[in-house]
């Protein structure tokens, strides 16, 4: 499993309906899809759910990224299927398929959210929900500095390798010990950086007002209301199906179909 897995969770800037939705309604959608994946336990309805998610993905023009990361997940999927298949007493194929489908549906749900929502929007959504500005800023800034940190790690590794630190060969124990050498310069460097960032924050007037009007306003539009209502409807419908025993009967019916 390489870094390809992360492709499905990296934001891509596109101008689709989904991208333009308020992050809060997208979050509702995420909750709905997640809830649905957990409440359904058969391959048939889960496939229907997945198709629904794929439709959303298609509208967001993000199917390619999803597909690429799916290939990265393939090892885990095989494991999920195999473990279930080998450990279940009965209904092996049925349940194993269901569990695998559930895994895919869950990751796809999250993928939809992260592919179409910028960290900034996330922070805004948090702010609008009442989280104090200090924390949402911390959140945004941590995300913003992740690629920077990754690059710094590489530079530190390069610099130390150029002084003879062996990171490419050797036994596990030696390599781990050598990697530890990277920690000190990296930590010191990042501490220094955070000092400089703090200076710059102060110089930009941070801390002046407690109550701040954010530049971007999050406003709910018609599509947002539609999505939120549909999401809630989905959740409620499924909850009802469970509580009233309706789903249990559907499950029974599906199980007795001729499965290989």
């Amino acid at each position, binding site marked *: 499993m390489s870094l390809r897995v992360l492709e499905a969770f990296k934001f891509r800037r596109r101008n689709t309906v989904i991208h333009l939705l308020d992050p809060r309604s997208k979050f509702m959608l995420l909750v709905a899809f997640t809830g649905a994946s957990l409440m359904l336990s058969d391959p048939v309805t889960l496939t229907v759910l997945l198709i629904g998610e794929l439709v959303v993905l298609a509208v967001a023009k993000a199917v390619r990224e999803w597909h690429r990361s799916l290939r990265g997940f393939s090892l885990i999927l095989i494991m999920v299927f195999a473990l279930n298949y080998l450990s279940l007493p009965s209904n092996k194929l049925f349940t194993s398929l269901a569990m695998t489908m559930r895994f895919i549906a869950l990751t796809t749900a999250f993928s939809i959210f992260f592919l179409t929502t910028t960290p900034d929007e996330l922070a805004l959504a948090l702010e609008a929900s009442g989280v104090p500005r200090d924390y949402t800023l911390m959140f945004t800034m941590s995300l913003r500095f992740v690629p920077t940190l990754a690059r710094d790690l590489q530079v530190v590794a390069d*610099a130390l390798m*150029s002084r*003879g630190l*062996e990171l490419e*060969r050797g036994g596990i124990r030696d390599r781990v010990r050598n990697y530890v050498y990277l920690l000190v*310069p990296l930590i*010191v460097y990042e501490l*220094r950086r955070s000092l400089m960032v703090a200076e710059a924050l102060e110089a930009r007037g941070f801390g002046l007002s407690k109550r701040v009007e954010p530049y971007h306003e999050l406003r709910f539009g018609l599509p947002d209301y539609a999505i939120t209502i549909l999401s809630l409807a989905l959740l409620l419908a499924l909850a009802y199906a469970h509580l009233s025993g309706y789903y249990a009967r559907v499950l029974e019916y599906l199980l007795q179909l001729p499965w290989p």
Partner: protein
Amino acid sequence: MDAVVVDRVFFSYDEVPVLKGVSLRVRLGEVLAIMGENGAGKTTLIRHFNGLLKPKRGRVLVFGVDTREVSVAQLSRKVGIVFQNPDHQLFAESVEKEVEFALRNMDYPEEGVKERVEQVLRLLDLEKYRSRSPYSLSVGERKRLTIAAILSYDPDVLVLDEPTAGQDFINKMRIKGLIESLKAQRKAVVIVTHDVEFAAQTADRVVLMVSGEIVCEGPAREILTAPELVMKSRLSMPQIAYSALLLRRRGVALPDTPMLPDELCSELIKLVRQNVA
């Protein structure tokens, strides 16, 4: 043989081509300046010299050895790279220990270590800071420390990435002196820089890079004084060379292309005296 041979190297980051067919030779006893604007591929290129990066196509030979066959730690014995930002590299408890680090990694004989460290500290004017923490040193001293840490194991090729960035005048002169003494010891020195004045003062040969390709290569005097070349690579001409160009345009005949103040002035004085006589 040449110290480093870069043979038609192609390299990409994440499918974006950064080096497009670069060929280059680094020779002992010579100071080579690799110049170009930020993003031209200079830093990527030098990372191939000690194997930090391996070419996608083409090859890099260090004293005849292909960089893909050995590890970076091994290649570093011959090619030392001093990176631009000292703070990415310093971590030891004392200046002494910092310089020792590379020696210990390379299994230098124990008896020689102390002496070698002493030598290098003296060379870079850092002996009085011997037991101090690297972080207590000033910007210029930290820069010298990173150079010391690499010079400690006496590589045949020293590569300096932007050695003068953010350095004050006094430190720049020190670094210049160091480069000259290394050249006298028949080492190869490669500096990556966009500081044309420094290149004019220290470089023998200059290579200009634009968008991952080498657009020209030659003696410093030829390259740095040619206005079209300098403009193409988004650099500026050394002030003296530019002054000479302006003087020539106004009808003053200058024989050669001066790059340094003394050269220009001796020519000008000569002209003035001729006219008086």
